[in-house]
């Protein structure tokens, strides 16, 4: 078995795939890649399955040694990856010779970069997924972020990989935006008209206290009309819940599965990958769309991502 050796792990690097959806009854949230679109394209460029496990790096990269060589692809934010001082372009496959190390720096644009490897990262699955769930210490590499000295098995190359190229316009269409589209939340009528207006007209800043569980937003307060006690209920991915002090929190991939704060709105499916690319101190806005518009956009995005002809030149 070939392997990857972690020489420096970076700020927070975890093994992620599409996550384990469907275990809400056990209290398990899906986890999975924060930017599932980047993960998918990175994998497809290597002819991997779309949700093959990869390394998700956060704000800074790390140094990874490939003793037996590998074919890799970097997808998502540009973290300035190099081999022997030579830059590795994003969104294309690169052959790494045996004994070479990939050195990945700090982000120049977005929050997360994926290091995809042909054949994938081989870790034991928990409930059908390799995704790391940090809060409960399950999945991925011993349920935790990577550390110096970790050795991860990687897939062996069975054949040559075609050098695939993305079609012009694909990256532009899937570029992470800082205006997030939302639909109304299940408790949106708990909020005064004024709060709902501020949500879609104000600017919010992603707080430093944001992680894979949720993004706390600084900015205008959105307090509910009355401090009505809410009965805890299931919380969808991307829900914008509001604390009694009026702070908005976007629930994200490692979210609590249930919650008792009113939800004013919900980020739509096609924009969830944009949430995964937000950095602390980024300024964001919200724009309301209808359920029907959100659904049409979702079907369009799914069609693009599942069509080799549309993705690759």
């Amino acid at each position, binding site marked *: 078995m070939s392997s990857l050796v972690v020489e420096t792990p970076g700020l927070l690097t975890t093994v992620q795939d599409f996550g384990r959806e469907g275990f809400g009854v056990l209290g398990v949230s899906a986890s999975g890649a924060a930017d599932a679109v980047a993960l998918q394209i990175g994998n497809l460029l290597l002819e991997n399955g779309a949700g093959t496990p990869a390394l998700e790096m956060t704000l800074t990269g790390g140094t990874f040694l490939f003793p037996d060589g590998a074919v890799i692809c970097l997808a998502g934010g540009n973290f300035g990856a190099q081999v022997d001082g030579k830059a590795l372009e994003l969104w294309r496959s690169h052959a790494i010779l045996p004994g070479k190390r990939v050195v990945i720096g700090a982000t120049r644009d977005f929050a997360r970069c994926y290091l995809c490897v042909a054949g994938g990262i081989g870790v034991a699955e928990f409930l059908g997924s390799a995704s790391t769930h940090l809060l409960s210490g399950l999945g991925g590499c011993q349920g935790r972020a990577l550390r110096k000295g970790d050795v991860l098995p990687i897939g062996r190359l069975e054949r040559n990989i075609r050098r695939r190229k993305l079609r012009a316009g694909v990256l532009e269409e899937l570029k992470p935006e800082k205006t997030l589209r939302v639909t109304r*939340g299940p408790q949106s009528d708990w909020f005064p008209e004024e709060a709902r207006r501020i949500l879609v007209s104000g600017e919010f800043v992603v707080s430093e206290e944001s992680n894979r569980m949720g993004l706390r937003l600084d900015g205008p307060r959105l307090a509910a009309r009355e401090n009505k006690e809410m009965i805890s209920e299931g919380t969808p991915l991307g829900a914008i819940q509001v604390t009694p002090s009026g702070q908005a929190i976007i629930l994200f991939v490692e979210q609590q599965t249930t919650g008792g704060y009113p939800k004013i709105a919900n980020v739509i499916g096609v924009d969830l990958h944009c949430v995964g690319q937000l950095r602390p101190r980024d300024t964001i806005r919200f724009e309301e769309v209808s359920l029907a518009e959100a659904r049409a956009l979702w079907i369009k995005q799914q069609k693009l991502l599942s069509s080799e002809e549309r993705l690759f030149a």
Partner: protein
Amino acid sequence: MRFQAASDQALLVYLGEEIGAAAHEGVVRLLRLLQREPITWIRNIQPAYCSLLITFDAAAADHAEVQAKITAYEKRAETLPVAKARLLEVPVCYGGEFGPDLEDVAAQHGLQAEKVVELHIARTYHAYFLGFAPGFAYLGDLAEEITTSRLETPRKEVAAGSVGIAGRQTAVYPFATPGGWRLIGRTPLEIFRKDREPMGLIAIGDQVKFRPITRAEFLAMRRS
């Protein structure tokens, strides 16, 4: 039954508007039928006190279709017999280092610590749902006399097995996680183990009773 769109890919189904046995029985019946006869486009079901959050594949169905299908399921679920609940006993060493908030909780209610423990063990609790973290069961209802608010500032880390109370609920922390519930004791049992089937000790619909044990018993059970 009431429906509410929760996101572009999720629908909330309310089977009541309060915390109680009747609404929750409806939740469990509908859940059991959806588990027995799965619908292909349902991606996740999250039960809670009186609701189910249904996450679905939006390319395959829209809210109206999900609503129609769930309505038909619910009609049939009403006639399903509900299996008799399991009764689980959870041993707990109360107070001291294992229950750092026991004295505070007692003082807040003008009770002796022993009385708080007595009230906590007197009831058989109903497992309403699992949430927060894998295996974390929301157990209710706590006796009114010891209903206590969450901590103002949650702890950064709560030891695995800690028994906490918050509002009219009680729970056992399956993992060392951050937590804001008031801790009154700890169990030596492993609440969640990924190498066990089932992984979680407590499941939705179970009945749970707590039994007080000494520190020596706690340590002996831990070792075995």
